[in-house]
Structures are given as C-alpha cells and as structure tokens.
C-alpha cells in the first residue's frame, strides 16, 4: 500500500521487540464482542491512484461548475478570482502539513503569517484586535453573541431581521441550550432596512444587537444609528459582514461604532468549495475586550537573544488550559484558509482591494440597471454593493431559479430557499455580481429571465382558461 512504509520483515522484527506473536496480541484489550474477523465488510478494498482519480472525477463531472455558466450566486458565499500564487503558497508543505503552532521556535512561518493576518483583518474591520480565525462566519456570529453576554453579563440578543437566516439559525440553535434569549424578527421586504424597528427592541437586558452589513438583501444601513441606540442601553453592537470585498468601498463597521465585528472571509482567497472550509473572522474595536475573545491569538514577543518572534498568547482563555471555564470550546480553527486570505490580501494591498471593490460595484450597477428593465422585474434596493434583491412577477423565485438552471444560467439565490414557508419573500431573488461576471453574462441573465417570466405569464393565462 503506497502510504504504508513498514515491510513484513519490519513488522515481524517490531512485533518481536514488543513480545507479541501477532498483531492481534496488541489488540487484546478490545473486548471479544467488538473483535472482527477480518476487514469490515460492505466496503471496497484498496485501489490505485488512477482508479480513485477516475471515481472522483466522475463525481465531480456531475456538477455544474461556476466557471462554465453565467453565475450570480451569493448570499454569504462569493465567487472571486483567486490569483494563481495563492494556491502555490498554501500548497507549500511547510504550511499545509504543519500543526497548530504549539512549538513556536519551529512555527514562526505560521505565527508571523497569523500576526499579519490579524493586522489585516483588524484594519479592514476598523478594529483594534482580530483573532487568528474561527470556523466560518456563522459560528463567529454565535461566538460574538456569546462574548457579548460575557462582557455585559446580560443574556438577551436582538437579531436584525436582515441577518443571514442561516446565521440566525445557528445563533438560535446555540441559544436554546445556553438559555440566552434571542429576540428575532422576520425580514421585511422594503427598500430601506427597518432600523427603528430594530432599535426599539433593545432593552436594559440586551447584551447585543446583531446587524449584517451589507445585509442579506444587499442593503447598506447606517450602523452609527444602531450603535448609538445600543450603547445608550449599555448593549454592544455586533456587526456581521459576509463579503469582505465590500469593505474596500464602504465605511468599516468599527468606524461606525461596532463593538464586535465578525464575518466570513471566504470571498478572499478561499473559493466556493460548496460551503466549506470557510474562514471565520472575529475582531473587537476596543482592545480592552481582548481577554473575553474566543479562539487563538498570535502575539509578538522576543526570543532569548532579543530577536523578534511570535507566539500564541493569552491562552488562559482557552479550553486546553481553562477547560470548562474557557471562553469557547474551539481548538482547530481555519489556519490554512487564513493563509489563503492573507496571501490574497497581500497581493491586493490597499490599492488592489479598492480597485477590486470598485470593479465589483461598477458591474453590479450595470447588472441592476439592465435587469430592472426586464418586464416583470423590480429592483428593491436603493443602495447596494455587489448584491441586490429583485422582486419577480409570476412564479415563486425558487422555481424561476430552477428554470434558469435548465437554461444553463445560475441566476441567483431565491429567498424562498433561504426562508422556506415565508410567503412574503417567495418572489424575491438575490443576485450577486463580482469581477468574474462579464457584461455578456448579465445580458444572458436578462434575456433568460425575461423568457422564463414571460413563459410563466403565458402559462398562467392558459391556466385561467376553464379547465376540463
């Protein structure tokens, strides 16, 4: 077997050293009830690289890849061009096959990279300190709520109705076990976010308000208004960002008064990958909150010769030291995705990120203008970055997405899929546009959308004829 270096002679010699007659002697402590008489049945035997590759390629071939079709999906995962050197860097064996940097003298590569990553994330978010990553945006969102309850010693979180519904579900799932109260609301289909409705739900027991920016409908709202309302009641403002590229164009959450900023870092360097692994970002505006943060933190120090070096620090917050009193149970995070993110960010730099954001926004504006002209389509947003909401006539948007797929267009994410059963949202379609979108793609979507809506209208008219 190509991954197993021991020879049969080695095995015999080593068993002898162990005083064992056969390998079974080393498994004597397994009770008889759990002893098997051979390889587990109902599974195939080993296979060559070529055979396995053939199997996996057949499975991959059954999927419609984004690069082969006009593609407009977003809603928390965005398709951006990843520079070729990003994958070269993350495939360096010294990064790929390293462990969490517990031995800092021989992990300075990972540690310095994380220190640079933390600095980039903190600056992007307008914060003082960022951690070394969490699993993804949704779990980072829950960690932020949990941290806010620790900081304020209150147990109620107010979630904006325009927070990604899967993020809200993760928070509600966790809260039902921790006993924290979650004040949720249904999202309203309107041009401007309902900030008044949101702030009116903040009370003296509120630990935090959670707002997405830009929100699930692609809208951009004035966070400083929410920050003021939260702070007035002694609550923290948690801002969630699912598209970091947006922050190359719009004000940072920290600048607008957010206390904790969390988000999904997938859009930079990581790729779509059908939902994972992704990259949870977590930052605090004020360094005084750092000891309540979850996850790993990399800090600067010096070695015995006075040279600058980096270590994991403040680990007394963490599970391997604090056990049941830890700020989080997280151990493994998203180190390699953080490397992809930071490499992409280093390639972009200030100038590149701003250009990338501008190009995304330019194309999104083009798309919104063009799609708005399709009969039966209305643009909901006044403001947006690279994703907006369309209201569609006729069939529910979920069915229109399916029809578009049959016509070879991945036309967006229907709110019907994100909010199953919520009738008011079933005609809404989220459309994301990035630098990978071409003007031709936009034209194809407009044409096919028009055809789908028109054929549905014709079909509905036909249905109105007396049946049977």
């Amino acid at each position, binding site marked *: 077997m190509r991954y197993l270096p021991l020879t049969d002679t080695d095995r015999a010699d080593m068993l002898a050293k162990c005083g064992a007659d056969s390998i079974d002697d080393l498994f004597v402590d397994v009770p008889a009830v759990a002893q098997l008489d051979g390889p587990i049945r109902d599974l195939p035997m080993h296979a060559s690289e070529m055979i396995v590759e053939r199997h996996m390629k057949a499975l991959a071939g059954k999927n419609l890849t984004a690069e082969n079709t006009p593609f407009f999906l977003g809603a*928390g995962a965005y398709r951006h061009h990843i520079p070729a050197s990003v994958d070269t860097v993350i495939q360096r064996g010294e990064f790929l096959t390293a462990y969490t940097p517990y031995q800092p003298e021989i992990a300075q590569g990972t540690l310095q990279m994380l220190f640079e990553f933390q600095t980039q994330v903190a600056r992007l978010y307008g914060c003082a300190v960022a951690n070394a990553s969490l699993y993804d945006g949704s779990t980072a969102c829950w960690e932020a709520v949990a941290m806010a309850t620790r900081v304020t010693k209150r147990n109620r979180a107010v979630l904006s109705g325009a927070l990604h519904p899967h993020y809200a579900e993760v928070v509600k799932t966790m809260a039902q076990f921790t006993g924290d109260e979650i004040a949720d609301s249904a999202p309203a289909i309107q041009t401007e976010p309902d900030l008044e409705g949101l702030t009116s739900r903040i009370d003296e027991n509120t630990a935090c308000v959670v707002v997405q920016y830009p929100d699930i409908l692609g809208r951009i709202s004035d966070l400083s208004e929410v920050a003021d309302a939260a702070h007035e009641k002694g609550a923290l403002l948690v801002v969630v960002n699912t598209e970091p590229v947006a922050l190359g164009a719009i004000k940072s959450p920290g600048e607008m008064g957010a206390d904790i900023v969390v988000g999904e870092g997938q859009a930079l360097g990581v790729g779509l990958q059908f939902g994972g692994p992704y990259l949870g970002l977590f930052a605090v505006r004020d360094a005084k909150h750092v000891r309540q943060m979850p996850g790993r933190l990399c800090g600067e120090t010096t070695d015995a010769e006075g040279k600058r070096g980096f270590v994991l620090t403040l680990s007394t917050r963490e599970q391997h030291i604090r056990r049941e009193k830890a700020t989080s149970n997280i151990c493994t995070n998203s180190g390699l995705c953080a490397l992809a993110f930071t490499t992409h960010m280093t390639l972009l730099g200030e100038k590149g990120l701003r250009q990338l954001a501008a190009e995304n926004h330019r194309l999104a504006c083009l798309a919104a203008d063009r799609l708005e002209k399709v009969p039966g389509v209305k643009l909901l947003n006044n403001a947006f970055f690279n994703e907006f909401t369309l209201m569609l006539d006729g069939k529910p948007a979920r069915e229109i997405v399916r029809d578009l797929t049959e016509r070879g267009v991945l036309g967006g994410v229907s709110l019907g899929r994100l909010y199953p059963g919520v009738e008011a949202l079933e005609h809404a379609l989220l459309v994301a546009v990035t630098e990978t979108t071409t003007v031709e793609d936009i034209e194809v979507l407009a044409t096919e959308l028009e055809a789908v809506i028109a054929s549905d209208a014709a079909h509905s008219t036909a249905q109105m004829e007396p049946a049977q």
Partner: protein
Amino acid sequence: MNAPNKSGWKPVAPVLGELSEDGMHNGPATTTGNRALMLEEPLIFETGHAETTGVDLPEIGAGAPTRLAGFERSEPIGLVGLTEPETVRHYTRLSRQNYGIDLGFFPLGSCTMKHNPRLNEKMARLPGFADIHPLAPQNSVQGALEVIDQLATWLKTLTGMPAVAMSPKAGAHGELCGILAIRAAHTAAGNPREVVLVPESAHGTNPATAAFAGYKVDNIPATPEGRVDVEALKARLGPDVAAVMITNPNTCGLFEKDFRTIADAVHAVGGYVYCDGANFNAIVGRVRPGDLGVDAMHINLHKTFSTPHGGGGPGSGPVVFSEALAPFAPLPYVEKDDAGDYHLVEEEVVGDDHTAFGRMTAFHGQMGMFTRALTYMLSHGADGLKQVAEDAVLNANYILRSLEDILHAPFADSGPCMHEALFGDKDFGGGLSTLDLAKGLIDEGYHPMTVYFPLVVHGAMLVEPTETESKGSIDQFITAFRSLVERAKAGDETLKQAPYFAPRRRLDETAAARKPKLAWTPEE
C-alpha cells in the same frame, strides 16, 4: 523602510561563536542577519506599500456611478500590497521557518500527524468540487451531494453506527453537535438533566463543550493503570447524569477495555455515551465503536482520514449517532430518494420522525475535507484502513518498548498501548523538565511530541508515530530520544537553553501575555 532587515534578527555574534570541542567554528555574524539558507523575513507592513499591488485590476474611473448611498469609505484602510514575486518570496521564506510532516517526523500525540496524500489535494481542487456554490440548485450539484452521501456511508460502516451528521466544522464542533443532540433527546423526554461526566485525562475541549451546552462538569478519576475508574464512575451515575464523555482509545494511549460495561451502566440510568473519536485512527477498520455501546462520536477527518492540519485547521468533525440520537441530528443533511436522486434537506418536514435540534453552521460542512477524506478511504479500502490501525499501533508499541528501560513509562504494565505511548519526566535531574527535552528534540531535527498532556502524568510526553513512518525513521528517532533522555537524567544544563539551531531561540511567552501586542503598529 527598506533597511536590510527589520525583522528583529540583528546582526550579532552567534551565541555558539566560540570554537566548539571538535574544533568547528560557527562562523562570524553576517551583515544581513541571514545565515545561508536560514533567511529572515520582515513583516509585509515593513516592506509593502499602499500603492503596490500584485493584481492587475482596472483603474477606478472618476465619476463612475455609485449606489453606496453615502457610505463610501473615505479613510485609508491601512493595508499594504506586494507584487507577485515579492509575495511568493515572502511566504516561501516564512514557510521555511515552519516544521511540517513533509519535512520530518512529527510525533505529536493525540494530533495524528500522518502523511497527507497529494492525490487528496488534487481531487479537492477539481473544479467540479472547488468551484460550486453551496446554494446552487440541487439538480446542478448531484455529484457533490453524492460525495457527502458516499462519505457518510463509509463513516457509518466503519463505526457500525446508523446515522451521521456531516456539518460540524472540526472535532470540538462535532463534540458540541453530539452533546446538543444528547441534550435535545433528554429535553424531548422531559428533562435535559444537569451533569456530564468527564474523565480527568480528557481533552480540554470535552469539559469546555459540556459547559458550553449548559451542563455542569464532574470529573471522573483514573485508575493507577491509566483507565477510567469504573467503580467511581458507577458510583457517580444517577438520574442527573445526562452523559459521559470518554475518549477511546484514551489519552493515555490505552484501550478502555471496560467501555461496554461503562456504556451499559450509563444506559441503565438513562444517560448517553459520548465517545471522543480523536483517537479513532488506532482502531479504524478493526473495531467498530457501535459494537461498544456508543451513542455519539465525532470523527476528526483531519486526524484519522489524513486531511491536512494546515497549521491549525481547517478540520472536519462529522458525528455518528446511535438509533436513539439519530432523530435529533442537525440540519442540513443529505438524503437519497428511490429514483437515485440526492436531496439536501434544509428544513424540518412536518410529520416525519426527524426533529433536528437546529443548525450548526451556515452551509453543509467542510466539503473540501470530504473530498480529501473520501479519496483517502477509497485509496486504502477496508483492508488498507485495517492495516493503517495495525501499523499505527505497532509503531507506538515499538517506541514504548524501546524507551521503557530508560524513561518513566507510567502505564507500561497496563497492557499494549494503542496508537501512542505515554512517558513522564520523574527521573530527570538538575531541574530539567519535559519542556527541555522537547526543545532538545527540535535541535535534533524533530517536532516534539505532545507535552504536559494528559494532565494525569507528571511532565507528560505523548508520542504518536502514526503508520506513515518507516522503521528506519522510528529507529533514528529512538536513538536521538534515548540520548536526550540520558542527558536529561544527567542534568545536562545545556538543554535548558535549547533549541540552539531553530529559527528562534526560546520565546518569552510571559512577556507576550503580560503586554499583548496582537497587531502590527508603526514604530514610534
């Protein structure tokens, strides 16, 4: 800005600049601070510029339309860029300051640093897996859903368990998933209960998880032979106990031979058995946890099934469930219908027997790790995986029996070890400790074993060779380790300063924590 070296590697005389005993000289200081292939590297913030970029993008047109409603960023972000050649060199130089499995033996106990096959990487990068969106219409991603279903089938078959939740993002997230399912099952039966029992030797994530899920944690002592004290555990069982969390094989490297007895006792009081599957690699293909009475167990795909650790993740922690807990598994999950089509179930269907406790994460789990793990399983097959467990256990026992004459091995008489061998530092002299030996190993060219864990052994050293080391590699390690043990027992003072030859000498962790500097700031 571009001084020869701002990284802190100051051009000073080398510490070992004196002629050594054999007359060799360590050479003079260098102007750059570099020493041949050991190249220092500044931070990007010290070499990059705001106006430099390594990506060609259109210039921002003046007067372009904007729909940002007055929220345009006016202040600089504070980022710097590098061109592509500078970027590639920066990260290449950093990478060379890292130890990885590709470079050498990495016997980090409980972490399972086995070889990461490159076929896995190649398969995960197929556009059909890498370039598909999690919310793509399901009829356009049938192959991806089939990967999840095939991997689920392998996991269920290998563990002998009827159900699996695929979405947890790492081991600790899987633990949380398992404990939440247990809590949901108790709640559905009328009472969530109060206590989770955790052995002293458990991973720190176990008590942290139980506490996060709202449970009080009670510790269960170990016997002198390094296993769970069954009598103490039985005595603590009662109607308040929601679950026990037991690692098997345990963190002392031993198989919990009374696991089935423990499980039966826990079930008798209406509790559930959570097995921490971090060490499943010791028994994969040879023992099915389902035969031992397990109700829930997470599987670290990044340990047992060879997906890379990546310097701290990403991991992946699917959780297998017994019949009793299966109905509470979280959303979403994949189902196959009679026509052979795959469906991602994202919402509760009223009237079926499934009552998910909720959702663990935004999407469906670590797809990139699923493709790698499935590739690994198909490569090894049922026969190869059994051999994986056997070679891992053989290698560990070989190390145990090759060191026990010279080093304190507290559980050497407790029977064979499984995939890792545990030692302690009680015979060291001159105030030397496990840490000193670990740093000495660095100079010998090894990544140290896990140190000071588990907590039940003084100065614990947990050595896990894995099955992907050759006998030659292990023999050389044993030789190096024995010489270090001899030095430590003799109280060799020089070990206190080790490592001498790593990119950095010992780092001041106390200072780092006392005045945390967690982001770069310009020098005053």
